[in-house]
């Protein structure tokens, strides 16, 4: 008769709760108002700090930076959209496009298992050491899950990846109901996996916050807004969820290894700003008459933009109709920077629109930089930059209420020893602190 060898369970534990798009200043405000008491208690035990995120400041890029600890120049995700090779057709980067190892794989090499719930930019789900439920932009639940043995569990939990964004834009009652339903189904599936799986790292991301801010930011800023109280109530619900997760996690033996973060900040929108219209106005970009598609770009255009404000030099070697030789790239970049720098008071309110102009070469490093944007713009709060083609003006009416910000994201750590007082934190730093908390070395 053979003896079974029992491996001693690894007692290391860490937990991350992500709150998509929640600004540090909003959290502080909610704590002061008494809306988020659980969070306030956690902040009292640890450190809440604001941080900047990767560029551009959108979830797919930021979360990819969090899950790898790398900049887009290494992980290769620069946006929700990209262009197909040697083409002007859009493609939608997916999890398989991520070029670097994830923190869950890194933990897995040390025999640690992760449970990852609602992680944006991991669709279609692939094998990780543990369980992965993909978040936005996942479409089909079966392809958003690894391993698939939990499909029936997800079905029983009435699990969904996202709210119905189409209905929610038009119907606030529907939005608030759907937000609560989504929070509940994450909790149900988390509870099941918590008990059924052996794990060392638990991660769950609440994305309803981002959706709420896009559609109802005005309800936050205006106390007389009819949805103001419901806006606060959703934050009470999120706070309950955070308290619930922490309470559960604190029984696992390492309550200090509890972390929270957001992937970008948020603010209200005054106007949309169309970067391609700017490029057209100042002679960098033209389209065949009347066209509103990028594929109709003229062969003498020197630059174009993709969402939200990624500017690409129209290189001869990379694009079918590209005209800019390598030797001329720096010159065009200088002209573009000068042009963007000169647009100081082009808004309807006689106030500056562009806050930062970044050179891609300064922002990104690594093997994936050939696909990187050449220039990135960060607007002043309120000016929501868009890469859409075909707008007749540079500044237009807003279609949503809230927009992302590059700064004012947050990080909360109960491990004060992992933060230094003079540290200017970015989202790239966060995963390394989480890994360090459970002794996983870089």
């Amino acid at each position, binding site marked *: 008769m053979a003896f079974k060898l029992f491996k001693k369970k690894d007692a290391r534990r860490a937990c991350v709760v992500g709150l998509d798009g929640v600004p540090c200043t909003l959290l502080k405000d909610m704590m002061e108002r008494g809306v988020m008491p659980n969070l306030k208690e956690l902040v009292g035990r640890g450190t809440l700090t604001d941080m900047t995120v990767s560029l551009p400041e959108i979830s797919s890029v930021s979360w990819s930076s969090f899950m790898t600890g790398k900049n887009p120049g290494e992980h290769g995700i620069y946006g*929700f959209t990209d262009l197909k090779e040697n083409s002007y057709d859009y493609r939608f980067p997916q999890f398989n496009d991520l070029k670097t190892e994830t923190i869950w794989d890194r933990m897995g090499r040390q025999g640690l298992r992760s449970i990852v719930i609602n992680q944006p930019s991991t669709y279609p789900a692939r094998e990780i050491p543990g369980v992965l439920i993909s978040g936005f932009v996942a*479409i*089909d639940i*079966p392809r958003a899950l690894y391993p698939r043995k939990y499909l*029936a569990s997800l079905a029983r939990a009435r699990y969904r990846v996202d709210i119905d964004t189409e209905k929610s834009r038009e119907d606030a009652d529907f939005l608030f109901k759907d937000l609560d339903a989504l929070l509940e189904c994450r909790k149900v599936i988390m509870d099941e996996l918590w008990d059924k799986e052996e794990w060392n790292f638990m991660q769950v991301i609440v994305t309803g916050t981002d959706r709420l801010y896009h559609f109802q930011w005005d309800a936050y800023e205006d106390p007389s807004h009819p949805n103001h109280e419901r806006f606060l109530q959703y934050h009470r619900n999120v706070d309950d969820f955070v308290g619930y997760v922490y309470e559960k996690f604190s029984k696992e033996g390492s309550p200090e290894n509890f972390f929270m973060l957001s992937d970008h900040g948020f603010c209200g929108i005054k106007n949309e700003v169309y970067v391609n219209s700017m490029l057209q106005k100042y002679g960098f970009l033209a389209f065949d008459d009347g066209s509103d598609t990028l594929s109709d770009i003229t062969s003498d255009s020197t630059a174009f933009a993709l*969402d939200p404000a990624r500017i690409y030099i129209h290189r001869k070697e990379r694009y079918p109709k590209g005209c800019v030789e390598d030797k001329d790239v720096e010159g065009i970049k200088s002209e573009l920077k000068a042009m963007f720098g000169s647009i100081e008071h082009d808004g309807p309110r006689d106030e500056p629109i562009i806050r930062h102009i970044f050179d891609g070469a300064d922002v990104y490093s690594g093997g994936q930089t050939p696909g990187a944007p050449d220039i990135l713009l960060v607007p002043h709060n309120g000016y*929501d930059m868009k890469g859409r083609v075909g707008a007749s003006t540079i500044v237009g009416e807003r279609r*949503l209420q809230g927009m992302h910000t590059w700064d004012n994201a947050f990080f909360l750590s109960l491990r004060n020893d992992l933060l230094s007082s003079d540290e200017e934190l970015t989202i790239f730093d966060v995963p390394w602190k989480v890994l360090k908390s459970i002794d996983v070395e870089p």
Partner: protein
Amino acid sequence: MKGFTLWFTGLSGSGKSTLARNIEETLLERGMNVEVLDGDEIRENLSKGLTFSKEDRDINIRRIGYVAKLLSRNGVAAITAAISPYKAIRDEVRESHDRFVEVYLEAPIDVLTERDTKGLYKKALAGEIKNFTGVSDPYEAPENPEIIVNTATETVEESANKILRTLELMQYVPGEAVGAEYSEEEEEKIKARLKDLGYI
């Protein structure tokens, strides 16, 4: 995708629940809405209090059949896993459906007695359980089921594949999921979501 009812019938321990859950998982993977109506669970809920007399068994099966019909006509793949020993009631349920697939789980009683996963055969043979199908109550095997699987000789995977192949041939379930690349339909859905949130 239209709904249908997949009706498992067979003796206790023949593997109805196991196969039902296996098929459920695969159909979910293929994007279908699925509900399993498991005999044991139904007796704890919908049919609580019913005995195992022929009359009560018939009531139980009619109830399961009725719920399956409601589900299937609303686009759900309703999978039932109850012994359902009497042919007349099964046929009555079939008549009430537009899309009905009967699966007979064939397994000799001696194999089931040996398998005895729930310890019921031992008790039934000792006279501790009355009205036990196959021991002290009759089981009427289907004459023309759409699918027969022999769970005494086949593995769960073999039986499940046989059922799935048949359902595919009947065009009741779609083929296997596409590969890693986004389909055109998926791309359109992603575009719509990105637009709703102002990302494109």
